């Protein structure tokens, strides 16, 4: 069944929101205006968008160190996001988390995570909770190819399979764990193959094709909501920027040709081309969407920069709930 124009536009908008948020964050980081480390999602937008388009109230997402993309995809607020990256009191985490711990509990975005493999066990807990509370909610657990080698992923996958939890494991296989290419961190090609070891299906999808991700994620999530258990969805993708920040440190671990080849399959360009072909969105239309988001970005950055830093008194607050 072909996707509706509305769905396609929604996917496009989610992706573009991620892209423009990220590009701006990258610029600000390079300019030294955002402190700390920034792991950018640019290039991988189809994955977050294609999955998030199926999520709604009560669903959850566990994320990674590369978490802005996931938060934007589920509807994260640019103002609070930029404010958080800037370490301001108005940020999502009152400035305490920063890029690596950005979260929106109300949206079910249970946090970016500085620990590779930190998310999957938490996703198991959230999915267990959905089932326990007899909701129809699902949890989407994003993780990387590198993370697939952490013991925590294995334990979580086994548990999710055993309890048939409403959970989808979304592997963002961008071909690298930091600077180590996949063939130097595991002896397999398709991480989806690991699913068989946990008793649930594993599916490989083109992570640069938002429609393909959307469709595969839709099936997996529907399956989860029906109580049929988890799916491992491996999305082959690529990050356009460096592991941290935009430009690298000058150590060559992948070729310019390789980057160029992947950029030619830019997921946003691919989708825009498709939208144009289908007559859903022409160049002018796309430019208008872009401009609207761009304006939102500008406004959010201004808000963030005008926001106060947290008061030193906040330092020891929020350690315990009361």
């Amino acid at each position: 069944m072909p996707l509706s124009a509305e769905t396609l536009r929604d996917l496009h908008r989610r992706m573009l929101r991620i892209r423009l948020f990220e590009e701006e964050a990258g610029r600000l980081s390079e300019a030294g205006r955002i402190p700390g480390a920034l792991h950018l999602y640019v290039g991988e937008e189809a994955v977050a968008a294609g999955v998030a388009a199926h999520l709604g109230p009560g669903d959850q997402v566990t994320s990674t160190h590369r978490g802005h993309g996931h938060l934007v995809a589920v509807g994260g607020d640019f103002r609070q996001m930029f404010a958080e990256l800037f370490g301001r009191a108005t940020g999502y985490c009152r400035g305490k988390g920063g890029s690596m711990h950005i979260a929106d509990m109300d949206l079910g975005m249970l946090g970016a995570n500085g620990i590779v493999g930190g998310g999957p066990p938490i996703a198991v807990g959230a999915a267990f909770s959905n089932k326990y509370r007899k909701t129809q909610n699902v949890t989407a657990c994003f993780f990387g190819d590198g993370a697939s080698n952490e013991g925590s992923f294995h334990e979580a996958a086994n548990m999710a399979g055993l309890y048939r939890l409403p959970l989808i494991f979304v592997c963002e296989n961008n071909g690298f764990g930091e600077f180590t290419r996949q063939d130097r961190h595991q002896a397999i090609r398709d991480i989806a193959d690991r699913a068989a070891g946990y008793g649930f299906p594993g599916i490989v999808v083109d992570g640069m094709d938002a429609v393909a991700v959307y469709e595969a994620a839709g099936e997996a999530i529907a399956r989860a909501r029906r109580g049929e258990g988890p799916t491992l969805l491996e999305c082959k993708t690529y990050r356009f920027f460096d592991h941290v920040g935009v430009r690298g440190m000058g150590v060559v671990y992948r070729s310019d040709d390789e980057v160029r080849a992947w950029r030619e399959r830019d997921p946003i360009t691919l989708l825009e081309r498709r939208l144009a072909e289908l007559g859903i969105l022409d160049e002018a239309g796309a430019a208008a969407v872009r401009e609207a988001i761009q304006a939102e970005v500008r406004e959010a950055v201004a808000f963030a920069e005008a926001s106060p830093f947290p008061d030193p008194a906040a330092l020891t607050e929020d350690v315990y709930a009361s």
Partner: protein
Amino acid sequence: MTAATAQRQLPTVMAINEALRQLMREDPNVFLAGEDVALYGSVFGFSRGLLDEFGPERVVDTPISEAALVGLGVGAAATGLRPIIDIMFMDFMGVAMDQLVNQAAKMRYMFGGKARLPLTIHTMAGAGLNLAAQHSQSLEAWFCHVPGLKVVMASGPYEAKGLLIAAVRDESPVIVINHKALLGLAGPVPEEMYEIPLGQAAVVRPGTNFTIIATGRMVHESLAAAEQLREHGIDAEVIDPRSLVPLDTETLVASLRKTHRALVVHEAVRFGGFGAEIAAQLQEAAFDHLDAPIGRVGAPFSPVPFSPALEAHYVPNADRIAGEVLRLLGRAA
């Protein structure tokens, strides 16, 4: 504790069982998960019968996957449930430390106060049963050093029940530590639910001229030591902090102001143990009241040995405690 209910004696294992049962009856969001806690009722027996009463949705056997097990608790707590996660032996925390320390403990802070994690981790510490180096440790010092976690240690059935109830009702992650050698120890336990407030020490034995601060099983050895010391004309006060984080420093300092001398006793390795924190705090808070340095008794600097012949020397006991008190008082033991 009313006079009537105080009569009822329960072993620690049943006090834990009763607390779990009452907590699960009280709140449908409370569930228990762990290795062999359901069908088998835990290898220590404290969850026997719970599966029958509450069913497999709420009493959950898990695979041997402690990281995912703690994560199960983190994710469930963050989404509205009130999990009790059992880590069979405290020694196994090693494989779950990240979920505890980097996730559970920090989530609320990292998210600017927007997460709530009413999560209880229950575990079993301690030596004395010839279970050797990987099944006998007391690692509470690790957790006390991690902001975001609360840490309590029970010294008997009354404490086991009251601390567990307080922990599960708390809104933050709490580590509840029982001692495997105390599971059979019986004592008065009220039938009704009651809390031992986190952060409230108990003066287990009032005394006038020496303060012994002891945790877990060492409370009993310290009480025995206090009896020995009576013969030396020493009237020792024995205090059980019960909760290490938050720590009831006030009660400890008040006692020290009265007695002018104190000894901290725990079963954990002395070097780098939590006793160091107590000692460091006390000497700072009551420096001008001290007639002797704050002493510490703990295990020697070695892993726990298997052989009964060695383990008997490893675990601190009443004799060593009394001896150390006398040494601090400047008398030969």
